[in-house]
């Protein structure tokens, strides 16, 4: 039941391992995940790589419970109970979805400061997939 093949996953390694964003050479806005054409100016497709800080604030979140988890995450839900997933507004501007780890689901709130860490996401095709998750952070940088 392959869902995301290893090659497909591999192509997103710069984002998942290192939080590499695209700074638009025309309008200066930061795209993350990457786009073919900048989603802010809708014109330029010239970018320079930008290392994102990985810091941001929870814009919205959900607590995934039994029945709400995709099959490849069902085991995680079964083992650890409901897990939080958030859309985080990154310090550099773009929003991105990711799981929140190391937090009691009951304490997750909109506006809560978070930062990325490299974690195990899941296993598929017998290959462990690593990528960023968010963990609670303190306000200051």
């Amino acid at each position, binding site marked *: 039941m392959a869902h995301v093949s290893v090659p497909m996953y591999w192509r997103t390694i710069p984002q998942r391992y290192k939080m590499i964003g695209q700074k638009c050479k025309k309008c200066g806005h930061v795209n993350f*995940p990457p786009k073919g054409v900048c989603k802010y100016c809708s014109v330029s497709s010239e970018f320079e790589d930008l290392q994102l800080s990985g810091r941001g604030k929870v814009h919205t979140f959900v*607590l*995934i419970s039994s029945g*709400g988890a*995709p*099959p490849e995450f069902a085991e995680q839900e079964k083992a650890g109970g409901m897990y939080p*997933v958030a859309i985080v507004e990154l310090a550099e501007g773009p929003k991105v*979805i*990711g799981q929140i780890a190391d937090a009691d689901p009951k304490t997750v709130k909109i506006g809560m400061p978070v930062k990325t860490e490299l974690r195990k*996401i899941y296993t598929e095709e017998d290959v462990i997939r690593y990528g960023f998750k968010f963990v609670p952070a303190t306000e200051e940088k």
Partner: protein
Amino acid sequence: MTKVAIVGAGQSKYGEFPDKGIKELFFEAFKDMAASVDKGLDPKGIEAAYIGNLGSGGFQLGNMSALVAEYAGLQYIPTMRIENACASGGYALVAAIMDVLSGTHKVALAGGVEKMTDVSGLKQKYWLGVSGDTEYERLAGTTFAGLYALIAQRHMHEFGTKREQLSSVAVKNHKNGAQNPKAQFQREITLEQAVKGPIVAAPLNLFDCCSTTDGASAVLVCDAEVAKQYTDTPVYVAGFGTSSDYLAIHDRISTVTLEGTKKASERAYKMAGLTAKDIQLAEVHDCFTIAELLAYEDLGFCEKGKAGPYLDEGHTQISGDRPVNASGGLKSKGHPIGSTGTGQAYEMFNQLRGTVQKPSRQVKKAEIGLVHNVGGSGGTVSVTIMRR
């Protein structure tokens, strides 16, 4: 625009049917459609068919439109499978309308079918998950319940939308669906039941989510010039509009607006020469309760952020001034993905002609109605406005 008419519409029962596949389900809807054509239908007069379908679990991914058409006796005509996730049926309807509008054909069939209960629970989630953004949303561990929950949470935060208001959508739609003999769940639920449902993806619980369903529907679209050959009371297509949006919610301008719905409805209103105020009833895409609230706002029935109070005031009840989802909606009627859009058109055809199966569900004196079909979490949207 009054150049295109709808002269027949049919729907299979929605539910779980172990004895029927996509061919049998589609044929049931087709026969029901043919029976609705007042002056009779010679199937040989159907010149093309557009069939909405997500994939039916992958059992007949390729060429499924030819298969269901030939089983129903439609051979040697152009057929196409239209896939835009949960909006496949709505786009199939628009495809048939555009075909007739272009003058290519005088009579075209729009339909949809989905078989969802043959596949195991795990595989089902796999199939449904493929219509969101796979690389990021799916790999963050979400399915559609999770994605709509992200929208709901933010809507509650920004506008004070209440848990009870989400549940009231489900209560209203189950009340309507209880009077729909073709609905999957023909039973009412109480507000207390709906509020206390088991959590699926907080803030959404089981009663906020639609089900998996088998079903099919079919709508006969024709040039208005030949409509009277089929019936003295056609329903006219006043306007239509469609739009895409960013697939992943995190890419969108706003988390609490389906920009696709705004754009699609603006285009439909413009073509029809109408505004939201003119819409007397609507079938909207309530795959999750929050989705119906978003539809009120993004279709222009009320201001952004005011959907909760708009619902509480009773406007969208069958007894209200703008009934929404008199059929029971996706929530109670069921959501056989590819069929949902043309199934909404089936309901609207009957509402506008006063031929709803049970009079208790019939909206009185309605002349102008809107159908609204959303793919995924809003990546594709279609809106069609019909008038008597």
